[in-house]
């Protein structure tokens, strides 16, 4: 049987709520500007955000040789939840991006780890928290307690989604989980 030879690829997905920094992080890591499906928010700006992802983000990063990393970003809003199983199909791991500026980071974390587990409970997970400098009450220990209570063993980082190296560090951490 003839078959098409394809380059080895690794698909990773960025998930998380609106405004956490998924699209920003992918854009920071990508070799070229990502494929974007941003649309203006009909309800007006949410903080600094004037647009939102309505399908998915896509970008590629070539690691070495024939290995290409495909990065996908999920829309954060709940009415696009139907996209999650579609985009997560074939993914090897997830970077969960949460905003530390939200007053409910723990609740968001609980929601998203459960939502992702409903689709695929075996997916390796790394969690990155953005904008912690905007919330003096941000409590990383509370998130660690949540992960322990949920039985989730996921590396937990704070990071700046605009910083390529910091965003790439989350991807490297996820790739280490895949080894």
């Amino acid at each position, binding site marked *: 049987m003839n078959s098409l030879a394809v380059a080895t690829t690794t698909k990773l997905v960025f998930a998380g709520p609106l405004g956490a920094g998924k699209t920003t992080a992918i854009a920071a890591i990508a070799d070229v500007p990502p*494929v*974007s*499906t*941003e*649309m*203006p*928010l*009909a*309800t007006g700006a949410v903080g600094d955000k004037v*647009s*939102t992802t*309505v*399908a998915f983000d896509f970008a590629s990063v070539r690691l070495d040789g024939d290995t290409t990393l495909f990065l996908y970003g999920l*829309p954060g*809003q709940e*009415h*696009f939840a*139907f*996209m999650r199983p579609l985009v997560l199909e074939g993914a090897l791991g997830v970077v969960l991006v949460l905003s530390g500026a939200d007053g409910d980071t723990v609740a968001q974390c609980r929601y998203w780890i459960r939502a992702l587990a409903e689709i695929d409970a075996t997916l390796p997970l790394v969690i990155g928290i953005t904008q912690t400098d905007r919330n003096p009450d941000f409590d990383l220990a509370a998130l660690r307690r949540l992960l322990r209570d949920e039985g989730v063993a996921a590396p937990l980082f704070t990071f700046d989604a605009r910083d390529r190296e910091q965003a790439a560090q989350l991807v490297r951490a996820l790739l280490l989980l895949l080894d």
Partner: protein
Amino acid sequence: MASDTSGGVQVLEACNAELNALLGRLPALRFASLSTVDGRAVLAAGVLTDTAVERIAAVSSSLLALGETFARETAGSTYRHTTITADDGLIVVARVPSSRQRLALAVGCDHGGNLALLLGCALDSAATLTRIVDRVDA
């Protein structure tokens, strides 16, 4: 779409009338949905539950965005509409090119319709809705 002023209410009523008139133009038409480009339902006509209205709005937004992105990425061109052929019918998703608000129109028909008529009706309705939202006399 603003609905907290008398003008906004009139625009909504006029759009609603247009969606219902659209469904009357072809016997095979089954639903028409007007939504914002970020996936929020504005109006709908046809036999649809509230849940279906919300889901159609969200999916329409994704399809429109993917269509725009695909046209731009592959052809460096401007998107116009998306057509879907299913076993039991056809669906068209098109932009409502209003200068006031970015909207999407989704129209579906059963197997009794054909793509040319469906597309013609959908695009004509999108133009009418544009005039209504932009408050330009037809």
